[in-house]
């Protein structure tokens, strides 16, 4: 029933960005929420959960974007799941809404539980665009913007301009462009 409405036109959209510590999932969630709330003029909340480890342990960020008030601030069942590790994909796939959008890093996720998934070499794209793997989560945001429309490109650029640490803006913008471009290619295909 709800699946008939495009994601970008729904009142409430739930996004889960999952991977491991060090992949920038929490930062990506913060960028997405701020872009949607401050620059796209919607409401957004971001929360995160992670273990005691700084790197290597499971890490995930949840973003709820809404045109109305947001009551429950966590994901009930995700409309969009970005999984950058096999563990994250296995753990969170069952919580993806039926017909929801799954984006996986094809370089790190071998076993994808559905054929309805975007398999994108996210980390590889980050490496190609920036020379480093660490902007993978920003590549993922570019993909998400292009494939779902729940956040605008302009809002993401504006947020990165404010949020990026000194010297990292150029790198982040290149990563974002790589994601957007891949998204356009996939949509055209």
């Amino acid at each position: 029933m709800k699946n008939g409405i495009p994601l970008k036109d729904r009142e409430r959209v739930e996004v889960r960005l999952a991977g491991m510590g060090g992949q920038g999932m929490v930062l990506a969630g913060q960028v997405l929420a701020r872009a949607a709330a401050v620059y796209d003029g919607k409401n957004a909340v971001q929360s995160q959960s992670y273990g005691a480890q700084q790197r290597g342990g499971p890490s995930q960020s949840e973003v709820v974007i809404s045109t109305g008030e947001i009551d429950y601030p966590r994901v009930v069942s995700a409309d969009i799941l970005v999984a950058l590790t096999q563990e994250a994909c296995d753990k969170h796939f069952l919580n993806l809404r039926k017909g929801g959008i799954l984006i996986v890093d094809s370089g790190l996720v071998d076993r994808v539980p559905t054929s309805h998934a975007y398999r994108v070499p996210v980390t590889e794209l980050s490496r190609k665009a920036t020379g480093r793997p660490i902007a993978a989560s920003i590549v993922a945001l570019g993909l998400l913007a292009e494939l779902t429309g729940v956040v605008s490109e302009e809002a993401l650029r504006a947020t990165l301009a404010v949020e990026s640490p000194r010297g990292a803006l150029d790198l982040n913008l290149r990563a974002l462009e790589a994601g957007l471009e891949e998204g356009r290619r996939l949509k055209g295909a």
Partner: protein
Amino acid sequence: MTDAVGVMLQGNEAVVEGALAAGIGFYGGYPITPASEIAEMMSRRLPQQGGVFIQMEDEIGSLAAVIGASIGGLKAMTATSGPGFSLMQENLGFAAAAEIPCVIVDVQRAGPSTGLPTAPSQGDVMQARWGTHGDHPIIALCPSSVSEAYHLTIRAFNLSEKYRTPVILLMDEVTAHLREKVVLPLPGSVEVVERIQATVPPEWYFPYEETNSDVPPIVSFGEGYRYHIDGLFHDRAGFPTSRLDEIRPWVERVFRKIDRNLADIVHTEEEMTEDATVVLVSYGTTARSARYAMHRARERRKRVGLLTLQTIWPFPEHAVDHLAHQARLILVAEMNRGQILLEVERIVKGRCEVRGVNRADGELVEPRQILDALEQ
């Protein structure tokens, strides 16, 4: 100061912004997950505004320093989580007995003991009320959003100064770490309350004198007024006493100063309760799970309403009492094994069914749990 569309803030950051807006002059604390961001941000922001930040040796010292700073005339605050809040109980009692304004933020994490440092709970509800020994009045406020974290921090300072009492901001880890859009009021548009100053010369001043408001004026140490402050039951001059004709009026006054101002202190919010036969009672982030569940239940034409408690101590007896007349069922949702549930049962006195929707495993109560409880 901010653009009309608002800013993204974390709950802990909103507490800092609220404290600064309320006029905080001193912060003494010891960092602890999930409250550390408050100390971290305060260490940068407070000195910029001419205030003093000290990282103390532990939580016992933290509240001691806060009490001292308050007696010195500054609005003072500390922030901690369960393990640190346990250590603060002794000095919390001192602040209540000596009637020293101060604000204590407890960002609740799953416990007991060191529990789950990064996971939420609402397990400190009864500790906030009775954690320190002896009968004493206390005020505790629970924010359920980042915006409320800002506004209730200001309220905590205002109530603390107005009634010469410690006030606890009882937050949970979810709101503390949630990032959310907040529209901050313009500086100067926030209501800020200052403590009542003495108008008499030093030789006429009694720190615990009976007054019409039941809140005696407080003078900062170092201003030429010599007086005594003691945790022992004290006379109007602040010196220890064992005379019944001095003890009884003191005990009655410290409770009366809160009880006669419940309309000012106790805040709750009702949504869709007009025709409700089932009322959800909740507070903190759990209230948002309840609100979500209420909307889903309304879509199924169930007459469900919500009572959100912003003040949990003193307990909002009147709000619960009048809903007990109309409701068939009251469901109390909280991230503990049923603490506010006991209070609701105490007020309802069997007039309707009361059940808890509880969770104490470090996860937020999910809307589904509440909806399942509605179906039963």
